[in-house]
């Protein structure tokens, strides 16, 4: 857990937190689940790359190109290490969404015969099933719907409890026909952390591959993807103090080796003729064209920053904030939390509905007080439908969030129903 002094040192590292909004109100940033703010060291790392080492990587033999290639591969090693995997198992993408789509399209391409016999296990067809959950972000739902539409496979899903937790009673949806199970590690709406071990066991028992959406876990918890024993995982740099424009796909080495490429072009080939192309080994096979090199360098600075704080300390700090958020919201009459009401196995991400007031209006009043929360369906329409609402407001914390931030939010939330005359009805 961070001491007050540590936290204020952390906050000083994030230039944006010092700004004011709406006629000079201090910013209370509680939208970290959407995107995190960036510490100065991340900005400096990118800037330094451009000022001293910028060149095309894996393509040149001159001094700059050597240095750029080294920076790029060192970033890969650092980020891979941060999530407990080998550098050769980490593919750079522009965001987590691309990472998940990459896996889905590898299945499509294998189904179309690409990748030959080695890619056999990625072929899908009628009778095969892809399993997701009702808690998924659209990024881990729509690509699988589209994959099923392209291949004739069937989409099924695990259900949720009324608290928004994965309902393990529905685990028997995973069966002999299941080929892929895609689930989120932690929900960006309810904050609930999924029982990954149980799902992995069920999936592996029937030979299905597990794709983990680790977008919300990697920034907030210590995550070891090898220990979790998932087959693929996706996460985004911008949510973990890193730059926009960079994300990553983890894939078990032998799976990456067997997968046909998805995006094709420069730097991922071996021999190209007009009629035929052979492909480089992973991870290069999946990194077509000039990559987001400066951003990988920035992301390395971000994981080093988090690593120095220690992910256990980060998680403990945020657990305390989760408790304070839940306690604070519970004090405000007419507010219902969407998700677990206790802080166990839960992120400091609290979505809620205010009786009689639409989330957009809630968000507007909070914004007027300088409090930035997200309103809408948070890219999880089915989850909202399951919990009986069309949309919600969401306050989400990060390593730089203070108790004062939470208190300012709760104070402003207390004024919402009065303003809209909802308390009276």
């Amino acid at each position, binding site marked *: 857990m961070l001491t007050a002094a540590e936290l204020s040192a952390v906050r000083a590292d994030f230039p944006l937190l010092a700004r004011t909004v709406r006629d000079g109100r201090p910013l209370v940033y509680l939208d970290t689940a959407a995107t995190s703010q960036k510490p100065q060291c991340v900005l400096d790392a990118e800037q330094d790359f451009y000022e001293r080492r910028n060149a095309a990587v894996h393509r040149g033999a001159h001094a700059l190109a050597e240095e750029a290639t080294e920076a790029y591969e060192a970033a890969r090693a650092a980020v891979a290490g941060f999530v407990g995997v080998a550098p050769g198992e980490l593919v750079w993408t522009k965001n987590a969404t691309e990472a998940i789509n990459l896996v889905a399209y590898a299945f499509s391409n294998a189904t179309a015969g690409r990748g030959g016999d080695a890619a056999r296990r990625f072929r899908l067809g009628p009778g095969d099933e892809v399993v997701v959950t009702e808690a998924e972000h659209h990024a881990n739902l729509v690509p699988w719907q589209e994959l099923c539409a392209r291949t004739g496979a069937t989409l099924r899903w695990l259900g949720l409890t009324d608290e928004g937790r994965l309902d393990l009673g529905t685990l028997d949806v995973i069966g002999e026909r299941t080929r892929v199970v895609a689930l989120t590690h932690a929900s960006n709406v309810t904050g609930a952390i999924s029982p990954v071990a149980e799902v992995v066991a069920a999936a592996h028992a029937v030979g299905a591959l597990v794709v983990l959406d680790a977008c919300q876990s990697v920034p907030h918890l210590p995550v070891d993807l090898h220990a979790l024993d998932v087959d693929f995982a996706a996460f985004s740099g911008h949510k973990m103090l890193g730059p926009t424009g960079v994300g990553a796909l983890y894939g078990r080495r032998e799976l990456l080796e067997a997968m046909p490429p998805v995006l094709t072009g420069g730097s991922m080939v071996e021999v190209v003729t007009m009629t035929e192309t052979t492909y480089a080994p992973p991870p290069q096979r999946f990194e077509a064209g000039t990559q987001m090199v400066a951003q990988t360098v920035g992301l390395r600075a971000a994981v080093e920053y988090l690593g120095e704080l220690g992910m256990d300390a980060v998680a403990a700090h945020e657990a305390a904030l989760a408790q304070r958020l839940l306690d604070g919201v519970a004090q405000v009459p007419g507010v219902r939390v969407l998700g677990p009401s206790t802080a166990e196995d839960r992120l400091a991400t609290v979505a809620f509905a205010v009786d009689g007031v639409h989330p957009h209006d809630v968000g507007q009043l909070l914004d*007027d007080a300088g409090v930035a929360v997200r309103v809408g369906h948070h890219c999880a329409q089915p989850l*909202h439908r399951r919990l009986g609402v069309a949309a919600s407001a969401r306050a989400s914390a990060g390593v730089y969030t203070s108790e004062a931030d939470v208190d300012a939010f709760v104070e402003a939330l207390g004024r919402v129903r009065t*303003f809209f005359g909802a308390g009276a009805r």
Partner: protein
Amino acid sequence: MSMEQLYQQLILDHARERHGHGLRGDASGPGAGESFQVNPTCGDEVRLRVRLSDDGTRVADVSWEGVGCSISQASTSVLSDVVTGAGVADVESFAAAFDDLMHSRGAALDPATEERLGDAAAFAGVSKYPARVKCALLGWMALRDALIKASKGE
């Protein structure tokens, strides 16, 4: 701008009363049209029906259904007042004026336009919040689409 300026009493009242709410009449057929619109950010929805007069020059009836924030609900409610019984050409020019208002980014209205917009001028404050402009326009988008369908249906 203060929240009271944004959420004028007229808006809060319309959001609660919602004139024209509750679908009636036909979704299609001669002189009838319906449109369904979604605000992808928040999932807010509106389904709106129009019926034209027999000669196709006036809006004989408007009705709608939807979930949304006070801005979108009030705006569609005001729309219903403005449009019912009005000439189609007038409705179109009114919709264009409202569109201009929403994209004015808080610039002051000239008195003629303000006069013209009547109750709808209460939404002026919304134009300062780009993310809310879509809310105020949701019903109007549905109206335009429904009118096209209604006149094609003839």
